């Protein structure tokens, strides 16, 4: 399995809609400095840097080349990643690979996005095949609309349930100083918000945010001597699906298998996780829309098929609940896309350290799952633990 890897430094900016006061490099620098201070290290202690970003969202081709100084990459090895919504997760996995290989001891992983630069949904449209896909698609929103419609029809879930899921996320976000949207919502507020692609309403979708997050990973030797108790990345799993909605994903006429199920079952089997709702204490699931929460809770085997909306109705997913999901407020409150996957890992790690402040889950948090999801139904799953 290679070297063991832990998270020893965590940093993120306060995510906002508009950051006209700084450029992207300064924003990245902010997150990196916080992570270094958290780990009580300097940039000289970093062996390699992994940075991720969606170039087209800011209009910078080779966005890593435009961020060298701010990211601390000057004269250091490193890689740039861009894998859609999974990027933050993929970046952590890549950092993990670098250290697990034994070739590097300490890695800095950075994710960022400055979505005040352009309408991101328009940039997202270019992810689709140009000749038969691009003119139709409604960005990621359409995927969740179809998901929501299907789920409501099959299991009797109602719009109020997705609205409740959104309200819970808003309550969580208000306890998170870094969160972008800290709204005070009721179910009525959600149900009255503007329809984008039915049944998905504006408030069901994540915002476009500007923000950066950074993690410092190191091997077992360095992690045991780190300034703060290490959070171990015990295992990771990823799976992809076909490149176009035409060929697969959640709207396949007879979907036999999803990337989430494949990746999750492999990870659970390897780590002896037989009852995820019991064996995992905190879930930072990457959920870009409230409508995705129900089917995905089931695909991660948190509950049986058709049961997720009932669990949400009972509010067990709250910070005080038995199955806390996205105690940070989630992607639906904060979504600087290049950073979002990384923020899930950062937030899960803060929970396991007991440093999540007002959003710290009530139950004892020793294990966590952080995920990242991308618009072609790719999934990246990271299994974190306080103990090796």
């Amino acid at each position, binding site marked *: 399995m290679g070297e063991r890897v832990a998270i020893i430094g965590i940093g993120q900016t306060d995510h906002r809609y508009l950051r006209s006061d700084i450029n992207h490099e300064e924003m990245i620098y902010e997150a990196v400095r916080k992570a270094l201070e958290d780990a009580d290290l300097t940039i000289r202690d970093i062996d390699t840097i992994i940075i991720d970003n969606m170039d087209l969202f800011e*209009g910078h081709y080779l966005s890593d080349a435009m961020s060298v100084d701010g990211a601390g990459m000057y004269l250091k090895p490193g890689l740039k990643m861009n894998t859609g919504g999974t990027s933050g997760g993929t970046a952590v996995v890549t950092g993990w690979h670098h250290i697990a290989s034994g070739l590097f001891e300490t890695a800095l992983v950075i994710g960022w996005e400055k979505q005040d630069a352009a309408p991101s949904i328009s940039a997202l449209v270019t992810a689709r095949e140009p000749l038969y896909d691009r003119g139709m698609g409604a960005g990621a929103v359409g995927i969740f609309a179809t998901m929501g419609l299907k789920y409501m029809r099959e299991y009797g879930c109602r719009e109020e349930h997705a609205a409740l899921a959104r309200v819970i996320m808003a309550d969580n976000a208000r306890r998170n100083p870094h969160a972008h949207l800290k709204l005070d919502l009721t179910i009525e507020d959600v149900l009255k918000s503007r329809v984008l*692609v039915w049944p998905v309403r504006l408030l069901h979708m994540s915002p476009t945010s500007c923000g950066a997050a950074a993690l410092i990973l190191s091997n077992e030797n360095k992690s045991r001597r780190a300034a703060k108790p290490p959070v171990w990345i015990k295992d990771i799993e990823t799976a992809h699906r076909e490149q176009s909605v035409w060929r697969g994903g959640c709207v396949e006429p007879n979907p036999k298998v999803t990337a989430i199920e494949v990746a999750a079952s492999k990870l659970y089997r390897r780590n002896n996780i037989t009852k995820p709702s019991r064996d995992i204490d905190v879930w930072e699931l990457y959920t870009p829309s409230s409508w995705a929460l129900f089917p995905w809770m089931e695909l991660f085997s948190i509950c049986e098929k058709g049961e997720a909306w009932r669990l949400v109705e009972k509010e067990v997913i709250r910070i005080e609940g038995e199955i806390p999901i996205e105690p940070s407020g989630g992607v639906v409150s904060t979504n600087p896309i290049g950073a979002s996957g990384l923020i899930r890992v950062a937030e899960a790690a803060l929970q396991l350290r007991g440093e999540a402040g007002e959003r710290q889950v009530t139950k004892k948090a020793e294990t966590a799952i952080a995920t990242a999801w991308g618009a072609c139904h790719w999934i990246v799953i990271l299994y974190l633990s306080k103990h090796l």
Partner: protein
Amino acid sequence: MSAELLEIIIPLDLRYKYSAGPHLGAFLRALKVGKIIANRCPGCRRLQLPPTPVCGRCHIGMGQDWVELSHQGTVISYSFVVDPIFDPGLGDMRPVPYTIAAIVLDGGPDVAFFHKLQENDPSKVKEGMRVEAVFKPLQERAGTIEDIIHFRTIG
């Protein structure tokens, strides 16, 4: 330090040449003559729509097994797009509302054709409804996906 903060507008207008390749090219040319075609994997026998050179599951060449699909099919899912977005291909806002649907065409189970529905009224669209492709007049077709205007309801 000045209190002013600059905002610089940098519009991008790029043109690309895109090679569709012979298989997708055949699909688009078939649309021009009013046909909807898929190809079938010699290994798993699954249809690919639009046609591809390689089967993603078996990872073998698709060969020459071409299948013509009916213009009629069944709606299995749909999205009503209400909120306008800036379309980078048009260089302008995309007109709304429009409805996109996944349609299983007769003769092509297990694959879906994604296109617009003529019907924009949510109360009149449901799963299982029967639709039929409406093509542009022959002289207006260009060998693109827009050679089909939309799918109209037939039952």
